[in-house]
C-alpha cells in the first residue's frame, strides 16, 4: 500500500463485507426475504443471493438485507419485503432478475416497482 487512495479503496471494498453487522438504523432500507420452507422451495435463495450481490456491486451501505419466516401467503412466494421511508412494500413472485430491478429502481432511485407489488398482479 503506497498511498492514501489505496487505503480508501480497500476500506470501501471491505465495508460491504462488514455491512449488516449492526442493527439497522432508522435511515436504513431494510429488505427481508421470506425464507421458510415455502419460500425456499419457490426459489427464495437465488433471490436473496441476487439482492446481496447487487448491494455489494453498487456499494450500498445503508441497506440491511436479511431473511424472515413465512407470512402465510405461500402461493405468492418468493416474497420480498422492503421497508423504506416508513413504508412497507411487499413484492411477490420474485426472481433474481426482478430482485435486481427492485434494487436499482426502488432501493437506489426511490421508485417502487409497481408491477411486482402485491395486489398489482
Amino acid at each position, binding site marked *: *500500500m*503506497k*498511498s492514501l487512495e489505496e*487505503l*480508501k479503496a*480497500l476500506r470501501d471494498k471491505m465495508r460491504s*463485507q462488514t455491512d449488516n453487522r449492526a*442493527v*439497522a438504523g432508522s435511515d436504513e432500507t431494510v429488505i427481508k426475504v421470506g425464507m421458510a420452507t415455502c419460500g425456499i422451495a419457490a426459489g427464495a435463495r437465488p433471490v436473496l443471493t441476487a439482492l446481496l450481490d447487487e448491494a455489494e456491486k453498487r456499494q450500498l451501505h445503508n441497506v440491511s438485507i436479511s431473511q424472515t419466516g413465512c407470512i402465510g401467503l405461500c402461493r405468492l412466494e418468493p416474497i420480498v419485503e422492503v421497508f423504506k421511508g416508513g413504508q412497507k412494500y411487499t413484492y411477490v413472485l420474485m426472481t433474481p432478475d426482478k430482485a435486481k430491478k427492485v434494487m436499482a429502481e426502488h432501493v437506489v432511485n426511490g421508485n417502487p416497482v409497481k408491477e411486482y407489488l402485491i395486489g398489482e398482479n
Partner: protein
Amino acid sequence: MFRSHILVCGGTGCTSGNSMKIYDALVARIQKEGLENEVHVTKTGCFGLCALGPIMIVYPEGAFYSQVKLEDVDEIIDEHIIKGRIVTRLLYKETVGEDGNIKALNDTNFYKKQHRVALRNCGVINPEKIEEYIAYDGYEALGKVLTEMTPQDVIDVISKSGLRGRGGAGFPTGRKWQFAKNSVGDKKYVCCNADEGDPGAFMDRSILEGDPHAVIEAMAIAAYAIGADQGYIYVRAEYPIAVQRLTIAIKQAREYGLLGKDIFGTGFNFDLDIRLGAGAFVCGEETALMTSIEGHRGEPRPRPPFPAVKGLFGKPTILNNVETYANVPQIILKGADWFASMGTEKSRGTKVFALGGKIHNTGLVEIPMGTTMREIIYDIGGGCPNGKKFKAAQTGGPSGGCIPAHLIDTPIDYDNLIAIGSMMGSGGLIVMDEDNCMVDIAKFFLEFTVDESCGKCTACRIGTKRLYEMLCKVTDGTATMEDLDKMEELCYYIKENSLCGLGQTAPNPVLSTLHYFRDEYEAHVKEKRCPAGVCKKLLRYQIVADKCKGCTLCARNCPVGAISGTVKEPHVIDTDKCIKCGVCMEKCRFGAVIKA
C-alpha cells in the same frame, strides 16, 4: 455482502468458557448447510459483559446470546439462521423487552451509559483481520497525519484534546510527546506499556485482544510526532491471546506496508517489535520497563533524567499505556474538540474500568469521565449480588485506595480520586460488600506489593514487609492501638522515601482504609473482633441451642470432627478443634450456626 453476521467473543473470558469450540462448530455447520456465502461467522474481541460468557451476537437482528453452550449451536443454526426464528431462551434477559421484542444492546442498562471510544472495535471486528479494521476507518488517522499534518500539528491536536495517560498517573499525553520531540537525539523510541499487572485490571488485555491495530496505528502516529522510527510493545507473557493477536497484527500491517519503510509513500519509516515481560509488577513502572527491554533485570532508576530525554538505550523515548494509544486515532480523525467535549474540565474523554469483585455484571465498561461511582456500580454493574450492602470500591489496584459508600456520588476523574485518597490507576474497580473485612483487603494488597517489590530501595523492600507484619498483628488480634499509629507513620515514611511509583503508592490501600474504616481496625485491636467475620483468628463459630434440631448434618460434614452431640439434641462446637472453615454454617438448614 452477507445477510447475517455471527460474532463470537474471542476474549480471554469467553475463550476460557470454550467460545472457540463454539466458533468452530458454527463454522462447520454453516459450511455443511452451504451458507458460507450468506452468513459470516467472526471471532471478535471482548464485548465487555464477561459475567455472561460465552457470548455471541447475531446481526442484523442484534440477538445477544449469552452463556451459550456447545450443544446450543445446532439450535441456533436450525432455528435462527435457517428459519429466521430467534432462540429466545438463550437471549440475555436484559435485551428482551416487556413486549417480547428484542431491545437494542445499547438500550440495556449495562451498555446504555457507556460510551465506547477505546473499546469501539472490541466485539465488532475480527482482530485477526487487518481488512476489518480498515473497513472501520482503520489506518486513516495515520494516513491523515502523514499526508496532511506536521509533527507539531499532531502534538497540538493531542494536547488540545486534553488526553491524559490512562496507565494511572494521568500525565498529559501531548506534553509528554512535546518533551520527546524537543529532545535532540540521533534515534528515538516509542514504547507501549502493556505490562498490566494490577490485580483486577484487564482493559489493556482486552484492547490488545480486540483491536490490536488501533495500538499499532497510534504508535506509528506517535513516532511521526516525535521523530522516531522504532517502537516496542512490552506485553506480559501471561497474556497469550493478546501476544498472538499482536503478532498477527504486526505481520499483516507489514504486509500492507503500514509498518516498515516509506509508509504511504511519504518517506516515513516505522517498525515495531514485541518484548515479552516475565510478569514482574515493577516492570509496569516506566524506567524498570525500559531497563527490562534493554535486556537487564527490571529495576527502576531515579528520575530525572526522564525517558523523554534519556530513555530506552539512553535515547529520547515516549512510553504510553495501551488505552492511551487506543484513543489517539479517534482523536486525530474526529478532532480535539470532539474528544474534549466528553468528560470533565481536567479529565477529558472516557475511561475503561474493569468491574470485579462483589458485583453482578463483572466485565469491562467504558464511561465518560465524571460519571459517578453510583452509576457505575448500580446502573451499569447491577449492584452487589444476593442483596448484600455495598461497602466500598477499590480503585487503582495495589497503588490505589478504597472509596467508602458515603463517597459513592463522587464524579470519577483523576483529581477527584486523588482528593479522596485513591487513584485512577489503570482502571481496576473491585467492589466490596458487607462481607469484606477492610483490614483483610489492605493486607491482601500489601502482600502483593511485598511480593512484587524489586528490592532495590530499602524503604520499599523492608518497609512494606514490616507494614505487612503489623497488618497481620491486627488481623490476628495481637496488635495494640500504638501499632495503628506506628503503621500510619511507616506508611508516610515508605511513600516519601521510595524510589519509584511502586513503593510510593504501596501504602495507599492501608492509609485509605485506616482513614475511612478506622472503626474496623479498632474493633480488631480493642475488641479482638472482626466485624465482617473474615479474619479467621478472631472468629468463633457457635451453635444456637434453641435453633439446633439435632439433625447431625453439621457434625457429619465437619472435616476435623469438632462438633459433638446426639441426635435430636443441640450440638456443640469444640472451639479448640475448630479450624473455622465455615462448612457447618453452610450446611445448617436451620440457621443455627453463627459467627461470633
